[in-house]
């Protein structure tokens, strides 16, 4: 059922991305052929890119290519885009995964602490951390921690993705903002849950604070937190472009920036589609988890 809902969205998104190459200023065929190519060479490039065919047919060619993993060829290197991306995707996925995991765990912990000690010092400290986390420019954080922990102290490598240590600082810089958002949201959601009538019922049964928070309130609070985490994943993908650049991390983000500098449109196109697909996929998964946590969705 939910998959059915997803299909039109995927089609439109892929069409928008497909159109991307047609909106960019200038002639992509000339771009492929090079600045000083002859007229014939440009025409050849045009037919290689299928740009001489009707728009709809181009789209079908593009889509059928997508299904077999054919994303075209890089203008810059001539290599297959699928190949270029598959070389870079694993470090990127690792980085996003590491970031989202630590951000969720720490964010929820801070949120729970803040909510249970509402308006006392742990809450104030937690929320100060959180609002600072949201306000920090991640590239700046990256630059500063490289300077301190790599250059000055020499604890971590300054960049690359050679070892597990090289993931620590980028995932810290990348996850900080989300951690903060999750902390704030967990707190407000838990505070809201703790005000509900069923909490009073629980207390009237003689339950202690632990059972109230973990047994009764938390599950209810998780429902909105899960949704927010899904939405923030987009923030994470966007941030990864910036953070990867700071740490010269060999992932999809740096690939995107390089490709933009070279106006390597097939690669840009494929990457934007990939980012969108990741985001849609994550929110789709979140939707399913949501259904499991919320009994009302399951039965209604």
């Amino acid at each position, binding site marked *: 059922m939910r998959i059915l809902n997803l299909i039109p969205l995927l089609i439109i998104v892929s069409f928008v991305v497909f159109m991307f190459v047609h909106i960019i200023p200038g002639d992509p065929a000339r771009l492929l052929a090079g600045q000083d190519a002859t007229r014939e060479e440009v025409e050849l490039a045009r037919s290689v890119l299928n740009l001489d065919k009707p728009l709809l047919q181009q789209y079908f060619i593009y889509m059928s290519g997508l299904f077999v993993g054919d994303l075209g060829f890089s203008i810059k290197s001539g290599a297959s885009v699928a190949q270029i991306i598959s070389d870079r995707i694993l470090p990127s996925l690792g980085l996003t995964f590491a970031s989202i995991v630590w951000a969720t765990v720490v964010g929820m912990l801070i949120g729970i602490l803040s909510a249970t000690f509402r308006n006392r010092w742990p809450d104030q400290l937690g929320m100060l951390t959180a609002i600072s986390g949201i306000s920090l420019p991640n590239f700046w954080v990256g630059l500063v921690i490289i300077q301190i922990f790599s250059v000055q102290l020499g604890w971590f490598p300054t960049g690359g993705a050679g070892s597990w240590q090289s993931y620590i600082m980028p995932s810290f810089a990348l996850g900080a903002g989300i951690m903060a958002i999750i902390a704030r949201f967990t707190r407000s959601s838990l505070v809201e849950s*703790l*005000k*509900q*009538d*069923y*909490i*009073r*019922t*629980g*207390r*009237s*049964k*003689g*339950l*202690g604070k632990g*059972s109230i928070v973990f*047994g*009764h309130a938390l*599950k*209810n609070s998780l*429902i909105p937190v899960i949704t927010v985490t899904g939405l923030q994943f987009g923030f994470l993908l966007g941030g990864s472009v910036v953070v990867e650049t700071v740490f010269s991390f060999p992932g999809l983000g740096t690939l995107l920036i390089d490709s933009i500098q070279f106006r390597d449109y097939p690669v840009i196109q494929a990457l934007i589609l990939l980012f969108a697909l990741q985001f849609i996929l994550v929110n789709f998964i979140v939707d399913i988890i949501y259904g499991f*946590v*919320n*009994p*009302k969705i399951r*039965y209604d």
Partner: protein
Amino acid sequence: MAKLLEVNNLQTGFKNSNDTLKVVRGIDFHLEEGEILGIVGESGSGKSVTALSIMRLLHDTPGEILSGEVNYKGTDLTKLTEKQMRKYRGKEVSMIFQEPMTTLNPVLKIGRQMKEVILLHTELNRKQAHQHAVETLESVGIPRAKDIMNEYPHQLSGGMRQRVVIAMQISCNPSLLIADEPTTALDVTIQKQILKLLKDIQKKTGMGIIFITHDLGVVSKICDRVNVMYAGEIVESAETRDLFNHPKHPYTKGLIESIPKLGHNQERLSSIPGTVPNLNDMPKGCTFSPRCNFVMDRCHAEHPDFYETDNISCRCFLYDQIAEERMSHV
């Protein structure tokens, strides 16, 4: 009969940064074993806060008990630590709330919420607790009790949910049950079923019930004795029958008269003028004086005591003389 609960000079208030708003302004009452005591009043009379004070469940509101005693079987509940108090809640003193739609946790199965309280307060193991939960659900008239253990609250109607809450709260055989407007959110035909259920439970178990409501009709159906509250005070206390046949306090009178009665073909209703006073702006003297039809000069200046004689227990200067006369006759 022995006194199950005795409340002495209970004062409860809400503190904000600079001053304290007293919601319950020094009330005294008691409950005998096996008695159903009604507390009736309009919104803002402090009746629900009284209940929460007895249960010591005021934490979530900024409210707190300012002074007074709540003696339950000889123990002053106000003196207990939170940890000690937890042993009383759900086991000795239980409470049913107004909104059946929100009093159960929406994401936990009924069974989990039922068993939780049983496991907490009894020696039963999980399996026995399950069995006991099913039996208790059956005893409050829930069909398919076994299936319902595996269902979520939103799958049940309001009346059924209220039955579940009742089952949950009586599953550890408390001696005192506080019911705070338990039927207000329900339709009349369902209300009737729940009232009957509560009466049956009371008869079967012999527990004492404090029944809080704004509905005099409900009071008349279920209560043995009634306290009428107005602006944080008990203004009159009487056996149910006496209260309706011979109300003493002008507020009680006004309240009874302002209710439309079936089959009486009334042209107009008599009504109490004005509105309930504001917490931060209580009238001087008798709090009811600005709305009272029998008001005297003295009512604006002095606060009336609670006069108690053989057949009068009422906070009103009208009964001052009578009380004194009685006293002199003796």
